C-alpha cells in the first residue's frame, strides 16, 4: 500500500487541517495490491512492448539462464506474484509521484527566483512569534527552537482535533472546515500570488478581469478538489495549492526556524505515523476499519477513483459527498474481484476481462495508484524553495536538494513496497534534503566556484 504520511502545518487556522495530515490510504491497501494485479493487464502490454524493443528477447542467452530460476518463481504462491508486481510496477508509481513533486518544486523555485515578494521579510506568522533579528547567535538559536516548539504543538493540537472529529464521525464539520480552508487558499492566496506576479512582470490588469479569472479558477478548483473532476485537473489544482502554501511558508517563516521546523516535522511525522498511539496512525486505522477513503482534499492521488461512481446507478441517488466516498468503496470492491480473475488468467493478460462490467473495471484497474499527502508536497517544496531563496550557491544547492528529495522519495516508496502499510514520507527525504542543503551550501559551493573561475572540470 502506498500511503504517505504527511504532516499538517498550520498557516492560518483554516489552512491547518487543509494540509494537516495525509496519510496514505489504509483502505486501498488491499485494493492497491489487487489493483496492481489487475492493472497488470493494461500495463503489461505496454511493458511487453517495451521489453520487446529492448535488447532482450526470450531467446536470449541471458533470459535462457534466468528462465530456469523464473519457473519456480511462477509456480509459487499468489503473494509472491503480488510482491513482484508491487516491486515491478513500483517504478511506474514512483514516476507517477516524481512528476507532481517535481512540478510543484519547479513552480515554487520559479516563483521564488522571479518574484521578489516571496523573499522579502514582511513579518511573521503568529505561530512563530519569536523574532530572529537578535544580536547573538545563541539567542537566535533559542528563538528558532521556541518557534519550532510552538509550531509543532499547534500542528499536534490540530491533528489530534481532526482525528477526534473523524473518530466521532463529525464529518460535516470536517468537510466544512476543509471547504473553508481550501476556499481561502484558492481565492485569497491566488489573488495575492497573481498580484505579485503581475507586479513583477509589470503587466497591468484591471479588477474586473482579475475578478473573473480568480473566480473561475477558484470555483473550478473547489469543484475539482472536493467533488468530481478530471483527474489531471484535480492533480493540477492540488499541485498549485501546495505550491501556494509552500510559498507562504517560505515567505513567513524566519530562516533558522524554517530549518529547525523542517527537521522537527520529519521527526514528528515519523512518530505520528509509526507509534501505535500516533494521531495519524489512528486516523489511518480508523479509516481502514470503516473502509473509507481519507478526505479527498488532503491527498494527492495519482489514480482515478471516481469513474465508478458515475457509472453505478445506486450511488447516483445519494448526495455528492457521500457519492464520492461510496464510489471509492465501490471502486475498491470492484478491484478486489478482478484480481482473482486476473490471477487465473495468467499469461493471456487481456485488458478486457470476461465479465459484463468491463469498461469501468478496466478504468479502475489500470489507474490504481499511489497517494501522497499534500503536506509532503508542501514541505518538499518549502525545502527546495528555501534552498533557492537563501542559498548563495543558487542553483547548485537547489539542484542538489531536488535530487536528494527525489531519492528520498524513491527510498520511501521502496520501503512502502516492502512494508505495505502507511509510511511517513517526510523523514527520509527531508533528512537527505537537509544534509545536502547544508553540505552543498558550505562545502561544495566554494569548491565549484573556484573550479568554475579557473574553468577546471571534474
Amino acid at each position: 500500500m502506498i500511503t504517505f504520511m504527511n504532516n499538517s502545518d498550520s498557516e492560518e487556522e483554516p489552512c491547518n487541517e487543509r494540509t494537516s495530515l495525509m496519510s496514505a490510504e489504509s483502505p486501498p491497501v488491499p485494493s492497491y495490491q489487487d489493483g496492481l494485479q489487475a492493472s497488470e493487464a493494461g500495463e503489461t502490454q505496454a511493458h511487453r512492448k517495451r521489453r520487446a524493443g529492448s535488447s532482450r528477447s526470450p531467446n536470449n542467452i541471458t533470459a535462457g539462464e534466468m528462465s530456469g530460476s523464473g519457473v519456480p518463481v511462477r509456480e509459487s504462491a499468489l503473494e509472491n506474484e503480488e510482491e513482484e508486481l508491487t516491486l515491478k510496477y513500483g517504478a511506474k508509481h514512483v514516476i507517477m509521484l516524481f512528476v507532481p513533486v517535481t512540478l510543484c518544486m519547479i513552480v515554487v523555485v520559479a516563483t521564488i527566483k522571479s518574484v521578489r515578494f516571496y523573499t522579502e521579510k514582511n513579518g511573521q506568522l503568529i505561530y512563530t512569534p519569536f523574532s530572529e533579528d537578535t544580536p547573538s547567535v545563541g539567542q537566535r538559536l533559542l528563538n528558532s527552537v521556541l518557534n519550532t516548539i510552538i509550531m509543532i504543538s499547534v500542528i499536534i493540537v490540530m491533528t489530534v482535533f481532526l482525528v477526534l472529529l473523524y473518530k466521532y464521525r463529525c464529518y460535516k464539520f470536517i468537510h466544512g472546515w476543509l471547504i473553508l480552508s481550501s476556499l481561502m487558499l484558492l481565492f485569497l492566496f491566488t489573488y495575492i500570488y497573481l498580484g505579485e506576479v503581475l507586479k513583477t512582470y509589470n503587466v497591468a490588469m484591471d479588477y474586473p478581469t482579475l475578478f473573473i479569472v480568480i473566480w473561475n479558477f477558484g470555483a473550478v478548483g473547489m469543484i475539482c478538489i472536493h467533488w468530481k473532476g478530471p483527474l489531471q485537473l484535480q492533480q493540477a489544482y492540488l499541485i498549485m495549492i501546495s505550491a501556494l502554501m509552500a510559498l507562504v511558508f517560505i515567505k513567513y517563516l524566519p530562516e533558522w526556524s524554517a530549518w529547525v521546523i523542517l527537521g522537527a516535522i520529519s521527526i514528528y511525522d515519523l512518530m505520528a505515523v509509526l507509534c501505535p498511539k500516533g494521531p495519524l496512525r489512528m486516523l489511518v486505522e480508523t479509516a481502514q476499519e470503516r473502509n473509507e477513503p481519507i478526505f479527498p482534499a488532503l491527498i494527492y492521488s495519482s489514480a482515478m477513483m471516481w469513474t465508478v461512481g458515475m457509472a453505478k446507478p445506486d450511488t447516483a441517488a445519494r448526495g455528492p459527498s457521500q457519492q464520492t466516498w461510496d464510489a471509492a468503496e465501490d471502486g475498491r470492491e470492484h478491484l478486489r474481484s478482478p484480481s482473482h480473475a486476473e490471477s487465473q488468467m495468467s499469461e493471456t493478460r487481456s485488458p478486457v476481462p470476461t465479465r459484463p462490467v468491463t469498461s469501468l473495471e478496466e478504468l479502475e484497474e489500470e489507474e490504481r495508484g499511489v497517494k501522497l499527502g499534500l503536506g509532503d508536497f508542501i514541505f518538499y517544496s518549502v525545502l527546495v524553495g528555501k534552498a533557492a531563496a537563501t542559498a548563495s550557491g543558487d542553483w547548485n544547492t537547489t539542484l542538489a536538494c531536488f535530487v536528494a528529495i527525489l531519492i528520498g522519495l524513491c527510498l520511501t516508496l521502496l520501503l512502502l513496497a516492502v512494508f505495505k502499510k502507511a509510511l511517513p514520507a517526510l523523514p527520509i527525504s527531508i533528512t537527505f534534503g537537509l544534509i545536502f542543503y547544508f553540505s552543498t551550501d558550505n562545502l561544495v559551493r566554494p569548491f565549484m566556484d573556484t573550479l568554475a573561475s579557473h574553468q577546471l572540470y571534474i
Partner: protein
Amino acid sequence: PAFGLFIFTIARDPLRIIILIAGAFFWLVSLLLSSLIWFIAVKASDPQDERLQKGLLIFGVMFSVLLQEAFRFLYYKLLRKAIEGLVALSEDGCSPISIQQMAYVAGVGFGLMSGAFSMINLLADALGPGTVGIHGDSQLYFLTSAFMTMVLIFLHTFWGILFFHGCEHRRWWEIAAVVIMHLTVSGSSVCNPLYVGSLVPSYLLMAAAAAWAYLLSGGSAQNLRRFLLCKC
C-alpha cells in the same frame, strides 16, 4: 543534447528514470565528499599562497575524479544487486532492463549531474547583464564552457558503458582506461584558458570512447547503415 538524450531514451521507462536520478545522486555524493576533502585541505593551508592554492585545487580535482570513479563502481555494485532482484522477481525470468541499459542510464545520470553543476550557475549569470571576459579573460568563456560541459556529459555516458562492461567481464584494463581518460580530461582542463589544449583532446577522447562503447554495445558499421536507411 544531453537533455535530448534524456527525453528520447530515458523518459519513457520509469525504471530508467529512477536509475538516472540515483546515478545523479551518487555523483552528487562523490562531489560532496571530494569537496569536503578539498575544503579541509584549504582551511588547513595558507590562504595567501597562490601556488599552493592552485596546487590544492588540482589535487582536489584529481581526487574528485578518483572519487567519482569509485562511486561509479559502487553504483555498479548496487545495480548488480538490483538487477538480480529484478530478475528473481520477474515473471518470465528476464529482468526488465539489461545491465547495458543500466550502464547507459547511469552514465547519463552522472553526466547530467556533472554538467548541470558545471553549467547552471553560468547559465543563470548569463541571463543577467554583463560582458564576457571584461577583465582580460577569454571572451569565449561561455562558449567553451558549453562545449566542454557537453563533451563531459557525453564522456560520462560513454565511460558509464565502458566501466560497467569492464566490471561485467572483469577486464580491469577497461576500468583503468576509463579512469585514466577521466584524469586526462580533467587534467587537460587545467590548461584553460588555452582552449586548444583542453577542448581538442577532450573531443578526440570522446570520439574514441564513443566508438569503443558503440562496439562494446554490439554495434557495427552494418547496424549503423541499417539504422540510417530504415526507420522502424
